């Protein structure tokens, strides 16, 4: 087990800057997920840690040692890729054991490792089977087992579940979590699926165009995104953004769109302070779909004093336990999650309130979060 530290890691391919100055401190036993859109540099970062890609600049530590020049096989890591190979002519036992056999580990040591891994993965009864007699999930487990028997300091996984169908992926996600709880091996995991990231990670690294946008635990990332990119990337359906302006009104401040105006409650003094310098400036108002309130079905004090906003219903999407309403405010379509009891119909003119405790305001130029 080991910590992994990236210090100003840069990867340049001729004209492409794939990773620019990454700094990440991964603690021992931590499960860190790298997430971001296609081409943002996730795989490149992982492969540099694995030693399968040269580091252009910066230092990589595994434990306390700089490993930039250490060969992959001497880094004590195991990788799991999306395209895992199971040899069709070997049974499950040998599919996990052959690497150790070829490295000439003692037979009893191999046997212990394979049986331990099989037990952890719940595939003991399958050890004699050939891959063709296994389900997709069982095969994935065997591939995982091959990494486990190596007892590495660090697991590196590049979208290991993306070949599985949706249902199996959910199941394997849960198993991966349990597995990490048991083994406590430092894990660095790449995915472009933010739900996978949110459910698996101790901490998430959000990347865009080779630049780290934020490193945080899932809840903080969700509640306090650094900028509009993170705000829009994490969460599904995504956070809504409305162009607005901050204006002074009496003692207080208001957020003003073309057709809406909400007062910032007097008790939000911190927000007030941050926003003072933005008076009469353009900002972006961000609100998550679940923080938009339908006064017809909502209860409680949230609505006392809340400013209501006019909107028109464009699309009604029943999701079972809730309804996603696509509504137009100021000519911009946004999504609100409302109670399944709601009777909203397409074309209805309705009023909504925002849960301002949960609002986000971004600088319109830099897209950085103000609050």
């Amino acid at each position: 087990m080991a910590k992994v530290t990236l210090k100003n890691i840069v990867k340049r391919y001729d004209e492409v800057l794939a990773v620019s100055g990454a700094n990440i401190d991964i603690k021992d036993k931590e499960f860190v997920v790298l997430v971001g859109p296609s081409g943002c540099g996730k795989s490149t970062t992982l492969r540099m840690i694995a030693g399968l890609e040269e580091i252009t600049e910066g230092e990589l530590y595994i434990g306390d040692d700089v490993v930039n020049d250490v060969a992959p096989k001497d880094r004590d890591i195991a990788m799991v890729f999306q395209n895992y190979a199971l040899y069709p002519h070997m049974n499950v036992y040998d599919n996990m054991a052959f690497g150790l056999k070829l490295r000439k580990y003692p037979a009893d040591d191999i046997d212990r490792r394979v049986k331990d891994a099989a037990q952890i993965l719940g595939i003991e009864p399958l050890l004699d089977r050939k891959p063709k007699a296994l389900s997709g999930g069982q095969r994935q487990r065997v591939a995982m087992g091959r990494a486990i028997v190596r007892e590495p300091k660090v697991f590196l996984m590049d979208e290991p579940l993306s070949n599985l169908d949706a249902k199996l992926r959910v199941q394997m996600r849960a198993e991966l979590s349990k597995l990490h709880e048991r083994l406590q091996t430092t894990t660095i995991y790449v995915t472009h699926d933010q739900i996978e990231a949110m459910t698996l990670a101790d901490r998430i690294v959000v990347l865009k165009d080779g630049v780290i946008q934020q490193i945080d635990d899932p809840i903080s990332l969700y509640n306090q995104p650094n900028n509009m990119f993170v705000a829009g990337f994490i969460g599904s359906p995504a956070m809504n953004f409305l162009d607005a302006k901050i204006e002074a009104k009496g003692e207080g401040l208001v957020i003003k769109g073309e057709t809406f105006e909400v007062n910032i409650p007097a008790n939000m003094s911190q927000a007030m302070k941050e926003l003072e310098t933005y008076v009469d400036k353009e900002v972006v108002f961000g609100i998550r779909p679940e923080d938009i309130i339908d006064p017809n079905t909502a209860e409680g004090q949230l609505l006392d004093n809340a400013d209501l906003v006019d909107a028109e219903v464009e699309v009604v999407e029943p999701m079972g336990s809730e309804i996603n309403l696509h509504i137009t405010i100021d000519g911009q379509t946004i999504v609100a999650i409302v109670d399944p009891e709601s009777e909203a119909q397409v074309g209805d003119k309705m009023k909504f309130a925002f849960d301002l405790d949960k609002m986000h305001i971004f600088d319109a130029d830099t897209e950085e979060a103000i609050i």
Partner: protein
Amino acid sequence: MTITMKDLAQMVGVSESTVSRAINNKPGVGEDTRDKILELVKKYNYKPNQLARNLAKQETKMIGLILPDISSNFYSEVARGVQDIAIQSGYQVIICNSDGKEKEELSYIEWLESNKIAGIIFLGSGLVNDKVIKLGLSDYPIVLANRFVEDLILPSVIIDNAVGASKATDLLLKSGYRRIALINGPKDNLQAQNILTGYKEALRAYNIEFKEELIINGDWDRDTGYEGFLEVLKLTEPPEAIFAANDLIAVGAIEAIKMGGFLIPEDIGVVGFEDTIVTSVIDPPLTTVAQPMYQLGVSSANKLFSLINEDEIKERIEILESRLVVRKSTKKLI
């Protein structure tokens, strides 16, 4: 309207280099993005500048074959298979003897790559090194022949030795031999372990108890065969048949058996494994499990050319089975 790479990049919201990578099937583009780009390419009938592509590629009509030692019968048979397919495709083969050393292999890879060789076949045994994994990840055409990789799937052709060993043992059992000694390679060698697995499987099918005393481990050479036979002869109950794990071991065992004045196959049956030229010239001609060496070369080369021509590959991992060749060193089936 003619569409440019820039237009495609804008439509998908990626950089031009990503579009180019997607079109040229290079790494670093996610599947979804690649699909999106290729869909647009089709829709707008986008044609990349063919000349520029060829210039960038500029590969020679040569492929590399890295193997431990061409002077071994086994490897030269495989090489012949590779070469026959290469010639048909208008390519030459560069043979590189690595003596099974990683350092040699690495410098060959570097040389082959920098000379724009179209692809490489890695033939031998054991795990591939990290550089080969890197090549595989970069989509450079490579094929593994009888070599293994742990982390990811690479196009491979592999001979299933366990099945072959089981066929050999089964033949001896079918011919009426019951106590069968296995003279095998080193105990920690995967090939030797696979042979042992097949041997045990066949015994199990006949409900015959496995006896550790009948297993001899040594090197893959004639001495091991010779000494191995003398060793099992000392048992209170000597074996009725010998399963030799390669041809050289078989040759040594046959020498020892004849020296002892025993008749083959009446007193002692012998089955070999491999079927190189050696086996048909010794007396009596050896019954053996013929390893599909030539086929290993042919299949590996076919796979490599599919990769080079960007054709679809049917099986990423192809398993070849050995074939039994019955000659005179075993009794007629009963």
